[in-house]
């Protein structure tokens, strides 16, 4: 694993703490809202893993594309989607970042180049390859970051994608969030070789394992990797060793791991350890922490209010955005609309 710098500036420290706190508190609120049935469908919380998104995404560059999974609230927030738009999306409102069509698993934002939100394990990797290929062909120097869980490593698509990235020397940064479980399947029960970062080396891709519970390590590793991707115009791979503190989704009785194991990992809580470190460095005091919590609480309250005040897409627009409405495709759209009309008016 890569080392960490000895000192963190107050400014940088507060930023990370704020970011991780925003993710943490937002998701705690999500769990609550799920209980109130404001949020439905599948909800996968990132709690425990905040150091990865908070440490990584600010290093990618303004113009980076991000491809993520169904456990992507934190990534969306870090990449610049507003909490308002995220919560409204989970409420299914038109004001949501996917206009209520996507929900928790499918946050999207063209403006910040956030390409989801993919609910098929490993399904996002080929998209990242393609985004990077487009950049390369157009001689743009921006990068594409692709986040996924260690469960994806068993999927064939993971291997096909890594090979393509290496073969074509594409500017993709793969970030594997190894939280040791894919639903209830422990890594050792799904991979014959459990050292995930080695997988990338099999394709000749630069690769490193990183302490994913520590935002500083994450940040340092990502900064180096991004530099490498840009300079060498070649892929890189980081395995973030992390842990989810909560259940896989809201339906998971967690039969597959012990309370003790979870408790042990909680000792490594990225928010708590950063707080302790900053305090030890004497660049953080109680007032700072309270300040952060207060502003985050406000942001969340505003977001909940915003989401509550949002609107439902009119049911007449059910078919909207299945196809592009353009002159060329008018007829297509028309036809389909007519056919569906029968159904909708059933």
């Amino acid at each position: 694993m890569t080392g960490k710098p000895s000192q963190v500036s107050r400014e940088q420290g507060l930023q990370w703490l704020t970011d991780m706190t925003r993710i943490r508190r937002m998701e705690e609120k999500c769990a609550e809202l799920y209980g109130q049935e404001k949020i439905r469908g599948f909800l996968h919380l990132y709690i425990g893993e905040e150091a990865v998104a908070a440490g990584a995404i600010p290093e990618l560059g303004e113009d980076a594309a991000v491809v993520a999974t169904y456990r992507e609230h934190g990534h969306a927030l870090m990449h610049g989607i507003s909490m308002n738009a995220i919560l409204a999306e989970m409420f299914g409102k038109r004001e949501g970042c996917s206009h209520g069509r996507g929900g928790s698993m499918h946050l999207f934002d063209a403006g910040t180049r956030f390409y989801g939100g993919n609910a098929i394990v490993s399904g996002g990797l080929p998209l990242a390859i393609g985004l990077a290929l487009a950049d390369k062909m157009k001689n743009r120097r921006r990068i594409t970051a692709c986040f996924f869980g260690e469960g994806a490593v068993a999927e064939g698509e993971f291997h096909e994608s890594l090979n393509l990235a290496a073969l074509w020397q594409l500017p993709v940064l793969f970030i594997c969030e190894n939280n040791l479980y894919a639903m209830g399947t422990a890594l050792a029960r799904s991979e014959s070789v459990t050292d995930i970062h080695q997988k990338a080396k099999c394709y000749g891709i630069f690769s490193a394992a990183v302490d994913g519970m520590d935002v500083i390590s994450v940040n340092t590793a990502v900064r180096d990797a991004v530099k490498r991707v840009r300079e060498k115009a070649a892929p890189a791979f980081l395995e973030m060793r992390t842990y989810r503190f909560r259940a896989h989704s809201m339906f998971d009785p967690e039969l597959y791991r012990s309370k003790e194991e979870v408790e042990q990992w909680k000792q490594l809580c990225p928010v708590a350890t950063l707080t302790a470190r900053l305090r030890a460095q004497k660049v953080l005091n109680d007032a700072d922490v309270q300040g952060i919590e207060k502003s985050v609480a406000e942001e969340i309250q505003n977001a909940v209010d915003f989401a509550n005040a949002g609107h439902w897409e009119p049911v007449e627009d059910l078919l909207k955005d299945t196809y592009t409405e353009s002159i060329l495709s008018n007829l297509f759209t028309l036809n389909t609309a007519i056919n569906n009309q029968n159904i909708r008016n059933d």
Partner: protein
Amino acid sequence: MKTTYREAMRSALQEALQQDERVFLMGEDVGRYGGCYAVSKGLQEEFGEERIRDTPLSESAFVGAGIGAALGGMRPIVEVMTVNFSLLCLDQIVNNAATLRHMSGGQFSVPVVLRMTTGAGRQLAAQHSHSLECWYAHVPGLRVIAPGTLEDMRGMLRLALEDPDPVIIFEHNALYNREGELAEDSSITDIRRAAVRRNGSDVSLICYGGNLHKTLDAAEQLAEGGIDAEVVDLRSLRPLDDETILASVRKTHRAVLIDEGWRSGSLAGEIGMRIAEQAFYDLDAPLARVCSAEVPIPYAAHLEHAALPQVDTIVEKVREVMGQNV
């Protein structure tokens, strides 16, 4: 006995595992996790890790391995967590499971059973709400069945395991929590035959799996309005039991087909065409169907609801076919 569809499938699995050493269950999270829908909860404790085999996220390889194990003399039950993920293993199903017997001139059998959850209705959005039964029902060499009643959920697996050819069981996710009275004698299950679940004389409502109860509810509502609907539960989606379907249509002279698949290319379309081919002169009205709207299923509750067949939409469509303008 009062029980749920989940329990019914679990006890079917349990019985199969007890009765035949060659049977094993394999799939993502079927063991330690207890099954994504808790269907196999407790089975790993009872039968061990070899026979309740957790797999990595490798749909193509483990489904193919199920096919290979069937070739090797086992009776694998492979759970593909949901039909959505089966898109990753279609090659194995279509090009190996379905063809090996024929391509080998009859030398090999593939007695594998694939179980998949199907359907929408839980706000899981576009990638997790598919109903692709019609695709599988298109493929020669496969048998496709879909339980709609508790008895069928309990009884179909045994028959599927007895079959020497690959069988796919589609279990609609909305059924698992449903409770009901399970008849003592589940031998009434016959996967070869569609079942008439309600006798009626005015119109045939043809449905299966997750839509059976919506259709039965619609039939009750229609009865209040003076329309006496017959409800046919397909049970087997491949092959289709033309005899039962046509007998019903020849009696009622009208048919409405209910199917959660997208309308274009739906199984409902196939059934309609069979009626139009074989019972054309018996029909007194155009055929009609109630399917899902042609849209990736959206997350928001009201939109998802509007996208799927509902009791209301079935009732309205039937009234339309009966000439009761709405």
